[in-house]
């Protein structure tokens, strides 16, 4: 069945930070969104693109393939760091997806994740990544519900979980959840019955064209912890099937990644028949049926690691901090930054053809023999060792990192040694958590800083003890 898209592996990433519903209740007197016990909170240097890179790496690792095996990459989010700009090429660079691949972006709807899944070609190797971190006004229920996370799927003819059926339905429902142009905050006019109607009508109409019998797990769009269960009868599944793979109760509303994250959880579990039902306000719905023929390999980080207080949450969100001061900073021009993307995104070092020593970045005289050589490119995306480290405390950050520090607090900066066949390179890198000299660290993609309005991404390091 070459026209059936088949899922080969799944990867999921959620930020390490969590906040409990009670923390909101303490601050506001109540926590409005139903059915959410905690939610995931992106750190100050995380966004949809960094979470997509994390989830994408995990899906590739689970499938045991490199990015260059990918023919088609789809990236779905409602919260792109830039409203206009192709971000999928950057994601491709971060994942080592080759430039010959076809790249697609899906946005402007929480249904974007399933749209990407359905758009992927069946006969080639595809990677679909959905990551999202919606926001609302601090005093609004949508903000209280807003979570974060990303899920990724490697698809290919040899995948063990085919999408056997799918259908969609869309019809106009103005006034349901929306985000105005230029705003970072989702809004709604809160006409409850109308919104619920839009949700159930579109899903049930789409579901009518899909065989839904026998599903033990149903990944359903979850703007809060109650809404997905309203689709139970439309999908013909018991509530337990929705609960079996729900992520909203611990992660909150993950927007376009909501259904993909639940689908990832279902596929990482041992379900044989899985339904997925996404909803995008405005409104449209996709319903998919997936038959798991053989276990789908997975690498998922669903668990949180640290719980925030509400004030700490407001800091992380940047609600009570100032952005960094623009002093011109340590100016690295955008073209200069562009030239270093293989290093920023994939730790590409240079190997001397004469003496074999590694040099990073791969330019200038060889660190081993001092000769000006043409380096062979060697990707060193691997664990490293902390050689030395300091902590940059509040007030001491360079101006371009002042905003991040105000939000996340003191951060560690290490020199990390990476090794390949007895040759080593050292590079400076920011730490996402404390690590001592000698500790092993794992590279991750994070937002480094923004200059001239251009967000710049690069490698930071997570101590292996904190890596999930």
């Amino acid at each position, binding site marked *: 069945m070459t026209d059936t898209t088949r899922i080969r592996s799944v990867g999921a990433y959620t930020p390490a930070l969590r906040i409990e519903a009670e923390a909101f209740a303490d601050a506001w007197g109540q926590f409005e969104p139903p059915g959410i016990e905690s939610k995931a909170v992106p750190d100050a240097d995380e966004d949809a693109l960094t979470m997509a890179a994390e989830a994408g790496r995990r899906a590739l690792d689970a499938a045991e393939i490199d990015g260059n095996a990918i023919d088609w990459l789809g990236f779905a989010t409602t919260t792109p760091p830039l409203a206009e700009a192709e971000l999928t090429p950057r994601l491709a660079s971060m994942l080592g997806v080759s430039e010959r691949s076809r790249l697609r972006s899906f946005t402007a709807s929480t249904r974007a994740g399933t749209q990407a899944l359905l758009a992927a070609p069946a006969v080639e190797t595809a990677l679909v990544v959905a990551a999202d971190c919606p926001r609302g006004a601090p005093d609004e229920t949508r903000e209280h519900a807003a979570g974060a996370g990303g899920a990724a799927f490697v698809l290919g003819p040899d995948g063990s979980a085919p999408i056997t059926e799918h259908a969609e339905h869309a019809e106009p429902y103005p006034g349901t959840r929306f985000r105005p142009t230029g705003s970072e905050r989702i809004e709604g006019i809160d006409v409850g019955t109308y919104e619920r109607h839009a949700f159930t009508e579109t899903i049930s109409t789409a579901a009518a064209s899909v065989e839904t019998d026998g599903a033990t797990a149903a990944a359903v769009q979850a703007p809060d912890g109650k809404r997905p269960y309203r689709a139970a009868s439309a999908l013909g599944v018991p509530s337990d099937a929705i609960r079996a793979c729900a992520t909203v109760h611990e992660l909150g509303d993950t927007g376009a990644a909501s259904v993909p994250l639940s689908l990832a959880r279902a596929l990482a579990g041992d379900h044989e028949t899985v339904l997925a039902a996404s909803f995008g306000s405005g409104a449209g719905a996709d319903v998919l049926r997936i038959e798991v023929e053989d276990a789908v390999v997975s690498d998922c980080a669903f668990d949180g690691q640290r719980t925030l207080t509400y004030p700490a949450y407001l800091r992380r969100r940047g609600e009570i901090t100032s952005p960094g001061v623009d002093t011109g900073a340590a100016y690295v021009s955008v073209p200069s930054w562009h030239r270093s993307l293989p290093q920023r995104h994939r730790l590409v070092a240079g190997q001397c053809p004469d003496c074999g020593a590694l040099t990073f970045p791969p330019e200038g005289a060889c660190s081993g023999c001092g000769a000006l050589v043409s380096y062979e490119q060697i990707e060193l995306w691997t664990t490293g060792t902390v050689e030395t480290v*300091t902590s940059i*405390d509040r007030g001491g950050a360079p101006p371009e990192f002042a905003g991040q520090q105000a939000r996340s607090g003191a951060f560690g900066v290490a020199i990390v040694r990476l090794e390949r066949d007895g040759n080593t390179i050292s590079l400076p890198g920011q730490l996402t958590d404390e690590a001592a000299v000698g500790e092993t660290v794992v590279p991750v993609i994070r937002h480094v800083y923004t200059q001239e309005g251009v967000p710049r991404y690069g490698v930071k390091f997570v101590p292996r003890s904190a890596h999930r």
Partner: protein
Amino acid sequence: MSEAYVVGAGQSDFGSFPDESYRSLFTTAYGNALDSVPSGLSTEEIDEAYIGTLGVGGRQLGLSGPAVTEHVGLDGVPCTRVENACAAGGYAVRQAVMAVRSGMADVVLAGGFEVMTDVSGESVRYWLGVSGETEWERLSGTTFAGVYAQMARAHMEAYDTTAEQLSRVAVKNHDNGAKNPHAHLQFACSLEDARTAPTVADPLTLYHCCPTTDGAACALVVSEDVVDEYTDDPIRIAGVGAASDAVGLFQRETYTGIPASRRAATRAYETAGIGPDDVDFAEVHDCFAIAELLACEDLGFCERGESGPFVESGATALDGELPINTSGGLKSKGHPIGATGTGQVVEAFEQLSDRAGDRQVHEPRYGLTHNVGGSGGAAVVHVFEREDRGDTTEVER
């Protein structure tokens, strides 16, 4: 090749001066340098000028050398701005020596200036950061203090160096600076002060870091043909060594020493024909407490890894066997970046001409200055000799 001599050196007060400009500070330093020449020296006699400055605040990035020399009436004198971050001043002195030794000039002004306290903290952090490696080191989020903190952490891990040993550098240099009327921070600091100060970049506390400072300093370097016109007690620039290295710490062969300092020192000792044991006092680059410990090792005053116990022993105190940073150093005297290297020469000149007052070392013959740019991307070492306090070099000449 002519020998080079320093016949005069003077500085402005180092500190924070809202009522002064970089030009007024330079004018003061220049005047004090002229006044310090035993037999007098006037503006018309100067052939060449080298001026060190980083240009903190960006006040006059282009032509910042002529901007101060024309202000003191040196119109027409060729002036070159020297920029090697915190080693700009030391390299200006080196250029002056080269000009004299080449025979192109007989009287050369080596000056430096910086004004750092009239801009916001954010701006200062920017300007301090531009002397590190920008594309990788800086964008890992580290500061200048952070890079030295990484060196401190590496030294502590390798040699069990302690935070208290770092603090002892601060205590000693504040003791010396309290005796220096030109110093920025003329107060004593206790071990407890240093220990309990806020952390700037772990393990460095505020007292392990030098202040940002306004100031200027000048030295007058002359050839052997004319030295007798200016002094009866010539101070020869006996040794000159300099080296550069990778700008980023991560690109260097070691984090527990500064290779450029080692190379510069080796060359300076070779050209002076002496060894570290012959040095009677030294002004070393202690922008952070760890930097003085590293300097003790890199300059050969103690074995590698032994600088903590060496400082703890009192050897480097004013009354110790090798007084280090009798001026108070960058820590207490202050660190107006472009003026620091020439400021070190002011202390060497005062010590060797017995003008150091309460800080005077007993009849020194050899003094050494050590000036580092960034975290070690450049270093320059000079050995000064009071010629009438020994005869070996006379024979060599």
